[in-house]
């Protein structure tokens, strides 16, 4: 066994134990440790990715060399390693972009606690990605929820308490449903290890036993994870949680946390239950329908919003809808498109949040539409970044959003029943996206009226960390948009390894 193969386990362990470590450090040192951990995990994941690509097959890592029913397993394939790598990169950029906001908005004495949360969040994301054990997945889902709550309410305003409470309630009901589903599955199959459950489920599906219990379990798990990742009717916690928390929190929550759950759901579909069983159930159709409704409703709410951050938050609802629509197509192409959109949306949404805060800086820390008029002229880099993010959302070729839209459409074309709903939903959502993003772009480039107060010029070098984060995120977006071919091939190969 190559030494590299230990890295996934080590990275989970590293981020897990650096969490408590941060609690006894000062804020400054906690920040350093946190940055170091993210970078190290990212580099380790890159090595793992390189290793899996070169060997061309996935491997199972048994913790402490205990075989399955007693020990715990990690499974690493191309897709897992790639996602881990991407998540680390985006998380680093989100943290980089929000340094100043954290210093201003979080109490001096609680600075280090923030990094505890971030480290735990990273750990749980990695665990969700790598784990081969359904119950471990559940445990880390809970860790994820709790640390996300911390991230939301550490800003300590009335709004964030409320938002965190809402998030907690919705998210815990989601976890509850997930747990119920896992229990059902355990009761029916007698296993908790993903590959074992799958064998058993396949057997049950062929013989037709326990059909109802299986479907209930599948439904419960899907709904639970859909709640946690803010699929349309369960999205009400999202705008507050993303809109009022501190910058790095909202960027991380929107671009990573919800994606971790979606990744877990994809894993459950493909590795736990088996794709053929999922395909036969009606669950995917339900997800498809709600995905589409979410695409439209999210955009409509975003149009009505007159606060920039909340508008971007609502647009997340729409984008999550895209991903569920891809899942709902229940074809390999659809899921690959959904996975690509996970990347694309992760990169774009983080970019938009950071850019929006840059625009807010240039407008007296306000993100109301009335105040950000002309902000793109006052803070050029943030303006450019917002423009790039908007164009990506609208789907201009060369940006990542176009590619994912194209893949969704390609997945839908030729699909027996779902072709027209998909394409029409894509059309409507594109137009609605154009409505609110272009409206905002025009506003930030319209010179502010004479005599308006609060605006000030912001140079590129005033906040070097944020500028660097913006530039990197724009580049990430362009790389995803211009160089999608190898990435998609990677996703496809990784997806094939799932079986």
């Amino acid at each position: 066994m190559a030494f590299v193969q230990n890295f996934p386990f080590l990275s989970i362990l590293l981020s897990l134990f650096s969490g408590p470590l941060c609690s006894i450090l000062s804020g400054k040192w906690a920040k350093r440790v946190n940055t170091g951990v993210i970078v190290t995990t990212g580099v380790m994941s890159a090595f793992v990715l390189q290793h899996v690509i070169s060997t061309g097959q996935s491997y199972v890592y048994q913790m402490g060399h205990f075989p399955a029913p007693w020990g715990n397993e990690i499974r690493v394939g191309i897709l897992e390693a790639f996602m881990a790598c991407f998540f680390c990169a985006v998380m680093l950029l989100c943290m980089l972009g929000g340094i100043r906001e954290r210093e201003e908005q979080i109490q001096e004495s609680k600075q280090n606690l923030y990094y505890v949360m971030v480290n735990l969040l990273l750990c749980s994301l990695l665990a969700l990605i790598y784990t081969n054990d359904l119950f471990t997945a559940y445990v880390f889902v809970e860790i994820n929820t709790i640390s996300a709550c911390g991230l939301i309410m550490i800003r300590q305003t009335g709004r964030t308490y409320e938002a965190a409470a809402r998030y907690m309630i919705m998210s815990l009901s989601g976890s509850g449903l997930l747990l119920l589903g896992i229990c059902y599955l355990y009761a029916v199959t007698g296993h908790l290890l993903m590959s074992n459950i799958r064998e058993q489920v396949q057997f049950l599906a062929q013989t037709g036993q326990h059909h109802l219990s299986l479907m209930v379990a599948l439904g419960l798990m899907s709904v639970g994870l859909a709640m946690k990742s803010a699929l349309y009717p369960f999205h009400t916690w999202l705008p507050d949680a993303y809109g009022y928390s501190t910058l790095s929190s909202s960027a991380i929550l929107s671009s990573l946390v919800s994606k971790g759950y979606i990744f877990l759901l994809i894993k459950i579909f493909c590795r736990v239950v088996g794709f053929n069983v999922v395909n036969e159930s009606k669950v995917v159709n339900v997800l498809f329908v709600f995905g589409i409704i979410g695409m439209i409703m999210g955009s409509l709410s975003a149009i009505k919003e007159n606060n920039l951050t909340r508008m971007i938050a609502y647009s997340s609802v729409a984008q999550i809808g895209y991903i569920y629509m891809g899942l709902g197509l229940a074809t390999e192409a659809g899921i690959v498109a959904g996975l690509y959109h996970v990347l694309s949306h992760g990169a774009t949404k983080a970019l938009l949040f950071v850019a929006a805060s840059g625009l807010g800086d240039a407008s007296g820390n306000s993100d109301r539409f009335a105040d950000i008029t002309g902000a793109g002229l006052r803070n050029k880099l943030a303006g450019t970044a917002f423009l790039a993010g908007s164009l990506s959302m609208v789907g201009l070729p060369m940006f990542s959003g176009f590619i994912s839209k194209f893949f969704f459409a390609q997945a839908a074309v030729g699909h027996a029943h779902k072709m027209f709903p998909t394409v029409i939903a894509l059309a409507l959502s594109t137009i609605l996206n154009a409505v609110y993003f272009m409206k905002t772009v025009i506003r930030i480039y319209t010179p502010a009226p004479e005599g308006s107060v609060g605006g000030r010029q912001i140079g590129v070098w005033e906040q070097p960390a944020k500028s660097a984060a913006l530039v990197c995120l724009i580049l990430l977006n362009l790389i995803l948009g211009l160089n999608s071919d190898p990435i998609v091939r990677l996703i496809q190969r990784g997806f094939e390894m799932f079986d």
Partner: protein
Amino acid sequence: MDAFLLIPIVLPMFFGALLLFFSFREKNTAPGGRRERARLCLYVSAVLGISVALALAAAWSGDRELVLFTLFEGVPVYFHVDALGRLFVTVVSLIWVLSALFAFVYMKHEGKEKRYYGFYLILYGVLVALDFSGNLVTMYLFYELTTLVSMPLVLHNGTREAVMAALKYLFYSMCGAYGGLFSVFFLYRYSDSLNFAPGGTLNQAAAQGHEGILLIAVFAALVGFGAKAGMVPLHAWLPTAHPVAPSPASAVLSGVIVKSGVLAVVRVVFYVAGTDFLQGTWVQYVWMTLALLTVFMGSMLAYREQIFKKRLAYSTVSQVSYIMFGLSLLTPDAFTGALLHVVVHAVVKCGLFLTAGVFVYRFGYTRAEELGGIGKKMPKTMWCYLLLSLTLVGIPPTGGFVSKWYLAEGALQSGTGVFSWLGPVVLLVSALLTAGYLLPIAMKGFFPGSEHLQGLEEPHGIEEPGEGAQAHSSRKALGPELSPAMLVPLVVLAALAVWLGVFPGPVSEYAARIATAVF
């Protein structure tokens, strides 16, 4: 690989962006001094001159092609110069240079010149790229960019009306572009490649059994890209957006940008889907109906519109659908006529909007009835106007006659049942209406009638020498009728409009060659 193609695309974009960068840096938006303006004009003309020279050189030196990079499997960003692109690039370049010349004087009273020229230069690069695009996705990219970059020209004066018009333009174009993208999804699946090839690249075997959905896709592209060409049902933005822009910008919007919609339609129908596929289908008939409807409706609306620039915008709606009708007939002659009309209409409509600009610039006149007697004040401008109007009506020996002749000929040969005679009839009626809304201005301009005479007549009869001298000097102060920078484009355009009719040979043969290639 031929990197030379990239230069005329990137060069104006880069220098335009540079100009924008500097325009945003300026603290005060007040117009600078004379020297600064002269320097700006020099900069713009240098960049534009070099870009145009390079673009034409790249266009007219063989079938160059360039694969920039691969977007995703089988779809690169790909430029390829072909006969059609060559024609469009030439038209765009010509109009761009003349309108820039006009703008050097005109934009003085609009202000924010750097921003205007910045977007103007970038837009030239985008249009060249659009014309050089070698596959559908590349074209879609630059089509969207055309919309985005031309939008600031529409909202130039920053009033609420202008911003709303620009947004309307944006949404119509984006909705339309999505229609185009919709067709790309399907064509990507059912054709050999998305690269343009005369006659189409549809894979007959793959398309077998999916004709219905493909027809819908092509129709979506027609309606969608037709939005930019002002075709019903997505035409409503055009009469709102074109008139609010500064006149030189309206000239290029109406003269050239609407043609990008035409180009996109030609590319989808004749270079990807193929004419055989559409011949005789419901798509063709609906397309013809929509085009004829637009021709008629545009003329009617123009006829009863009193604001001059708005009238011209409605006229654009009508005239561009002549082109659309020509294309929809799917016969070589009509196709030739459509391409000819692309050239003619670009020249004429650019010229007409520039004359409208002259009236606004010199007198602040915006309404048609204010123009009575204007021929006495500026005869040269009015003569240009008259020639351009006659061309648009289609009176021999002007360019409009030739293109409409081909269109009518093509319609009669097309064998499309009722449309083969209904088409020419509608075209004729619309020509009459065109005469009805354009020529009275010229007539009133030269022969205003008695009620206008008092106010306008120069005090020629000298009763008191002092007063006469004063009047003489005040006339001197106004200078000659127009500065050469404004007059030259008008004269050139008017001459071209007539020349296209007197010697139509080269252009019509060129268009006919394209037509034989695609059929």
